[in-house]
């Protein structure tokens, strides 16, 4: 009887429930007879999992007007409560998703608008109103003012177990505030749980069509500058007037700050921005955090993690598989382990449906994460209390206890068990049916009685799980049934094969009794009853026990040739080699070099050290590691071309260690590389010197203690001569380039003066404090004028080289390095008088107008005039042959072999101010060494070992072994994918895609074309 009562309640809820929960709002008119309710329910006999640590058996949960009023084993049930029997059921807190744009129209957002190198420049914002200068800073956006419930979306979310979500407009770098809403079908006034619940940020400028920022390093600079601007704005500077963007920026600071990073390196980058301004962001990741989990742990950031696992690929075409990347395959295998790895590392994280191709994959993906090592408790936490706590809503939601909002799930079993279904999702005390089927357990043995015009027949029926039923007559006939919570349909075949016909039954389920009408194979109708006899034995349902998954190793970097274990420093002696010292000692024959603790300890003959391993250098040549003065590898962006002056941007912010070119260049003997901003604008960004520490993190790549540099550029690129559509960005001539620099340093001088005045003024007691706006762009220029930062200047023709030196001299500094400098030979004497270094190509020419007078003799002439000359690459491929490029100066210009090798070792070290540490083989210097098979100036020479800090990062013998291992690993993963398809494992093959070629992003300065292979994507094409 109880059951049927319950059903009636249910019917009632279905018919009237909709309105009943729309609380009558004081200010709203009533178009009916007023119908006030208590909405009091008592859920009895339930197994209540109030949080991951607490489960109460046979407990009662009482809710009233959408709030939990009582909970516990012996809770008093109010008289006016509607009873819901939850025998055999589980109750969990509903899930919370912190990363959606639920209920917010995204119509206004255009597709990604970032331009490329040659796009028409939009200097100013297109946003109308008293807002800030940059269109991508949308801190004035307020999600709660845009929010309106979206029932169809809510229904999907609820069916996955969610009861509340933090929603924001995913547009802009600063995105304003997020709104925390319930997924109930309430008036919007009620479903908003917190209006301004969070502040949001990202690396994507979204719908902004403004040119700046065009790169991720520009985004970082813009955010940093906005923090400074907001601080300054607090002093109400009259120069700024009303700036609504900064006002809302300031107002949003007290909220939880959520940053969309979408990649492991971006997680670190976002966190560093926060560190500078005392903010700890909650960071939305991407699912690849396991690849750098130690570094991510060190940020102390809480993460929001999506479960968008990589799709499996078709494996049936070997010619397509050729282009599938090992890293993509490994990520496919390891991606589901990400949450488990984060848990193991003690990182706080919540899970989100964000980034899924299909939201319906969500629960399956959670279960997969559990299969791959995530504990069920942490999975529950990550969907309930953790997200609630992240935004300070844990007193209201995220677990079940008195006083909390009545958001909970009623499930058929443990929430993450294989066969568990969510029956109901109660949101703000409002019931939403998710899956009715199975609420009532009708499984069991029944005695079936059939009555047909007085004739009766009886037999046994076993109602099994999954809609299967056995009808035990003469034979046991396998039939089917379906039950929707009130009505039942059954059928079973009589006869065999194609000739079989079905007997069908249709009826209702009452407590322990089935009852209805049927039709036999001859079309005769009958009535039937089924009396419950006994329950059936059930196999216990639990989550698949974590099996041995046989997962591949995470490598550093996460690429082919990555280390499973990072190589370690050890002492060694290279014996009996021809040593090219790049010092005044020149070339030493049959000489030993002892390396200890990463430094060159001694050079001589017959050296010995007990703890040092011996490397035979007989017949081999040892040189200092090659230093590339001009490179664009290992960065996520290279050009910030949005403006002509971008001295605020820093390559340091966007180092990207997962770049195969580190390893490739190690194979060519490069040990130090100067990563420059591109040549899109006159005053480009701050550069970063790195050591080629393959497998290191972005921070570890940095060459510690080196003087900071900045890239300048002159000529065709900065005036954008190659554009088919003309140029609208100042400057358009070399006259203008000159004035861009004059203006920049004039402003920087004034700025410096003002800073000084303010400092002096603010020291005086009783003076009105002077606040000077901190300007990151001018800060870098002030550093140049104070000789704290040094210029490397992209340049070609003599007029511009000369003009740049005159600007520098006017402001009292020296252009440290002219890079490219293909007409340096024409003004070498003037450069020498100025004190500049020269870093050039060996033999490039005639690919654009400003290089028609480039000559291969340039390096030799400049060298002979007395300049410090280096040969650089500016090209990911050529960098691995810099020794050969240097050797061309022997052919063109007659330099000696020693002079030639100096141009890629000690000379670039000098111009980078690191010659006290690297660039030659000298006692006390870093053990950055290359052991060559032949004379290093010869085309036949190959590095056999490349050593950085005394660590062998490239070894031709090890390399050969790794090639074999890479192939084996790739094959293992392909076979694993293939066997998955054979086994037809549903979830995994549903989203199977064609074999995906592994494209490679290669940066270039935007200056010229490069030979980088078939799968190269010039990053300028994408985002610059």
């Amino acid at each position, binding site marked *: 009887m109880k059951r049927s009562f319950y059903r009636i309640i249910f019917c009632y809820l279905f018919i009237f429930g909709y309105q009943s929960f729309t609380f009558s709002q004081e200010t709203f008119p009533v178009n009916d007879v007023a119908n006030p309710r208590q909405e009091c329910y008592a859920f009895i006999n339930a197994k209540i999992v109030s949080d991951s640590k607490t489960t109460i058996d046979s407990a009662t949960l009482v809710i009233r007007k959408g709030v939990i009023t009582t909970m516990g084993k012996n809770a008093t049930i109010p008289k006016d409560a509607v009873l819901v029997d939850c025998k055999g059921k589980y109750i969990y807190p509903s899930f919370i998703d912190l990363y959606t744009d639920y209920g917010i129209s995204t119509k206004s957002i255009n597709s990604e608008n970032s331009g490329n190198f040659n796009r028409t420049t939009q200097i100013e914002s297109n946003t109308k109103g008293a807002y800030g200068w940059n269109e991508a800073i949308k801190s004035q956006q307020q999600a709660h003012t845009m929010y309106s419930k979206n029932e169809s979306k809510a229904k999907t979310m609820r069916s996955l177990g969610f009861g509340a979500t933090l929603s924001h407009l995913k547009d802009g770098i600063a995105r304003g505030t997020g709104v925390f809403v319930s997924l109930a079908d309430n008036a919007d006034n009620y479903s908003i749980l917190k209006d301004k619940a969070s502040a949001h940020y990202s690396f994507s400028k979204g719908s902004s069509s403004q040119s700046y920022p065009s790169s991720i390093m520009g985004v970082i600079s813009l955010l940093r500058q906005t923090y400074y601007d907001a601080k300054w704005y607090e002093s109400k500077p009259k120069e700024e007037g009303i700036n609504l963007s900064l006002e809302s920026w300031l107002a949003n600071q007290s909220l939880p700050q959520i940053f969309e990073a979408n990649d492991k390196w971006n997680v670190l980058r976002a966190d560093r921005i926060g560190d500078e301004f005392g903010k700890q962001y909650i960071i939305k990741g991407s699912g690849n955090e396991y690849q750098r989990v130690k570094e991510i742990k060190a940020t102390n950031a809480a993460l929001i993690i999506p479960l968008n696992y990589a799709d499996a690929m078709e494996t049936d075409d070997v010619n*397509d598989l050729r282009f599938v990347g090992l890293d993509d395959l490994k990520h496919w295998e390891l991606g589901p382990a990400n949450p488990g790895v984060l848990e193991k590392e003690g990182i706080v994280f919540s899970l989100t449906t964000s980034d899924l191709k299909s939201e319906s994959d969500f629960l399956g993906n959670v279960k997969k994460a559990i299969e791959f090592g995530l504990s069920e408790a942490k999975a529950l936490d990550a969907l309930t209390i953790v997200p609630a706590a992240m935004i300070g809503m844990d007193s209201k939601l995220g677990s079940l206890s008195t006083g909390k909002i009545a958001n909970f799930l009623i499930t058929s079993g443990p929430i993450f068990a294989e066969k568990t279904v969510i029956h109901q999702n109660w949101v703000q005390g409002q019931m939403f049916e998710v899956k009715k089927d199975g609420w009532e357990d009708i499984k069991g043995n029944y005695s079936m009685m059939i009555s047909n015009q007085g004739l009766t027949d009886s037999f046994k029926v076993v109602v099994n799980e999954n809609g299967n039923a056995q009808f035990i007559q003469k034979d046991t006939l396998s039939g089917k049934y379906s039950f929707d919570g009130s009505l039942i349909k059954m059928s079973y075949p009589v006869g065999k094969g194609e000739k079989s016909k079905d007997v069908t039954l249709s009826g209702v389920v009452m407590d322990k009794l089935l009852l209805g009408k049927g039709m036999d194979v001859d079309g005769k109708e009958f009535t039937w009853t089924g009396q419950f006899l006994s329950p059936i034995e059930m196999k216990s349902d639990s989550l698949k026990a974590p099996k041995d998954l046989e997962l591949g190793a995470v490598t550093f970097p996460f*690429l082919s040739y990555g280390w499973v274990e990072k190589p370690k420093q050890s002492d060694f002696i290279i014996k009996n080699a021809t040593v090219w010292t790049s010092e005044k000692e020149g070339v030493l024959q049959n000489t030993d070099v002892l390396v200890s603790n990463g430094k060159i300890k001694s050079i001589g003959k017959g050296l010995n050290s007990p703890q040092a391993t011996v490397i035979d250098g007989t017949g081999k040549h040892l040189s200092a590691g090659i230093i590339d003065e001009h490179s664009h590898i290992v960065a996520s962006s290279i050009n910030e071309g949005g403006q002509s002056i971008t001295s605020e941007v820093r390559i340091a912010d966007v180092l990207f260690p997962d770049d195969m070119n580190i390893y490739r260049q190690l194979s060519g003997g490069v040990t130090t590389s100067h990563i420059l901003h591109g040549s899109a604008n006159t005053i480009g960004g701050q550069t970063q010197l790195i050591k080629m520490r393959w497998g290191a993190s972005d921070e570890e790549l940095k060459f510690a203690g080196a003087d900071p540099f900045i890239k300048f550029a002159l000529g065709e690129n900065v005036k954008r001569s190659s554009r088919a559509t003309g140029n609208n960005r100042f400057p358009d001539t070399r006259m203008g380039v000159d004035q861009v620099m004059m203006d920049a340093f004039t402003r920087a001088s004034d700025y410096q003066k003002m800073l000084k005045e303010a400092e002096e003024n603010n020291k005086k007691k009783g003076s009105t404090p002077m606040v000077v706006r901190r300007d990151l762009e001018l800060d870098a220029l002030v550093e140049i004028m104070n000789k704290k930062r040094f210029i490397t200047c992209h340049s070609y023709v003599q007029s511009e080289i000369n003009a740049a030196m005159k600007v520098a001299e006017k402001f009292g500094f020296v252009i440290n390095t002219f890079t490219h400098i293909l007409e340096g030979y024409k003004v070498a004497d003037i450069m020498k008088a100025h004190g500049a270094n020269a870093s050039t190509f060996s033999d490039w020419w005639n690919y654009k107008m400003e290089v028609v007078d480039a000559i291969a003799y340039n390096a030799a002439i400049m060298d*002979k005039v007395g300049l410090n000359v280096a040969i650089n690459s500016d090209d990911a491929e050529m960098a691995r*042959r810099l020794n050969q490029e240097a050797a061309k100066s*022997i052919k063109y210009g007659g330099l000696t072999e020693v002079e030639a090798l100096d141009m890629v070792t000690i000379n670039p070290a000098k111009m980078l101010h690191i010659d006290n540490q690297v660039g030659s083989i000298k006692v006390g210097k870093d053990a950055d060494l290359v052991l060559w098979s032949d004379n290093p100036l010869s085309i036949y020479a190959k590095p056999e070992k490349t050593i950085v800090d005394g660590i062998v990062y490239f070894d031709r013998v090890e390399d050969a072994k790794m090639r074999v291992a890479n192939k084996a690993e790739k094959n293992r993963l392909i076979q694993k994918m293939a066997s998955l398809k054979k086994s037809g494992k549903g979830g995994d093959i549903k989203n199977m895609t064609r074999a*995906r070629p592994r494209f490679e*992003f290669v940066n270039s300065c935007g200056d010229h074309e490069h030979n980088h292979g078939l*799968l190269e994507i010039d990053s300028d094409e994408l985002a610059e």
Partner: protein
Amino acid sequence: MKKISYIIIFSIYFSCLFGQETILPALPQSEKIALVNGTIHVGNGSVIENGSVVFEKGKIIAVGLNVPTNGMKTIDCKGKHIYPGLILPASKLGLIEVNSIRATIDAEEIGDFNPSMRSIVAYNTDSKVINTLRPNGILLANVVPDGGTISGTSSVVQLDAWNWEDAAYKSDVAMVLRMPSLLNSGVRVGQRGQRNDEDRLAMGLKKVEDIKAFFREAKAYLASEKPSQTNLKFESLRNLFDGKQKLFVHCSIVKEMLVAIELSKEFGFEITLVGAEDSWQIADVLKTHNISVILNSMHSLPTMIDDDVDQPYKTPAMLQKAGVLFAINDNDEHNRYRNLPFNAGTACAFGLAKEEALQAITLNTAKILGISDITGSVEIGKHANLVVSSGDLLDMRTNDVQAAFIQGRQVDLANKQTHLNEKYKTKYGIK
């Protein structure tokens, strides 16, 4: 040696006086010349130490030891190396002067099927690039049109000429086809963006069908005795169908190469694969079907991120081992093709024997271009296209070309760059 020095000094003097525009094509060979006592790298794999080469009226008349040289102009090559002139197998030399300036580009015509385009008529003998190749040993070049699917015909030129008619060494050697990309598309959800997910393989295969349809129509047209209307596009394919011309197929990956082979079988074309970065993957197939290969700039990154980091460097050795006829190219638009010998040198560092590497930029190239009867090696009867270097030509450390002869004419090794070098050395007083 003295004579060579004279020539060099004279040409420098001459050019400084009159500027770069006065580098004159050499006069025809007027007397017998003997290069004596040199190390002769024949180009076919063999080396003759202390050998001599004699040439007359532009042709080699004697090669070897103890060759009589009485009464001839002799040039002592003791300690020096004599090579056949190097051949650029596929370049846009003379078609593009300055890459970034549209007005100086005559390489790509509008339209998809352009078999009637002839690169030779646009070849600019006054390009400043040409003279810079000779001091590195490059004396011949195949000039290849670009653009569209069928780009037109390429012609071999010699690099010391007044005009393109003089320059034409062998005209219209090959019809040039650019294979549509058959790289499977796929979305990489990666660090920095996505590629679109259209089915590029299907699009490519559709394009292949268009090419075949075009050839089938051409074949039918050419079979008719007297077409009622003349079709210049089809007419220009006559040599290809008659087997007098090769088909150069520019392609990269295995699927493209296999489709190219299949296409060549249907129409009976003799093909050479140009680019062919992944040719090492099907080297034995290429050998079996006698398909030759021109490898574009080896100084390139590997095709795939997972590939051996030096894959492009060692592809030549892999083709050599399989017995594939291949040539090495330099199509680099920055150094403007002059690193051809060093590309061969790189192949040497990665498994090719030195003489094999030389052959890949001389005799192999000549064979592929159908000119091995007249050039490509230092052998009797062939044109005296010769280079004298004081050291190993394939290594920039030792490459030092002191004399070069095209059809027996000793060519000026000066060029715009040497002139500017001299000019500024003078300014700074550098010796």
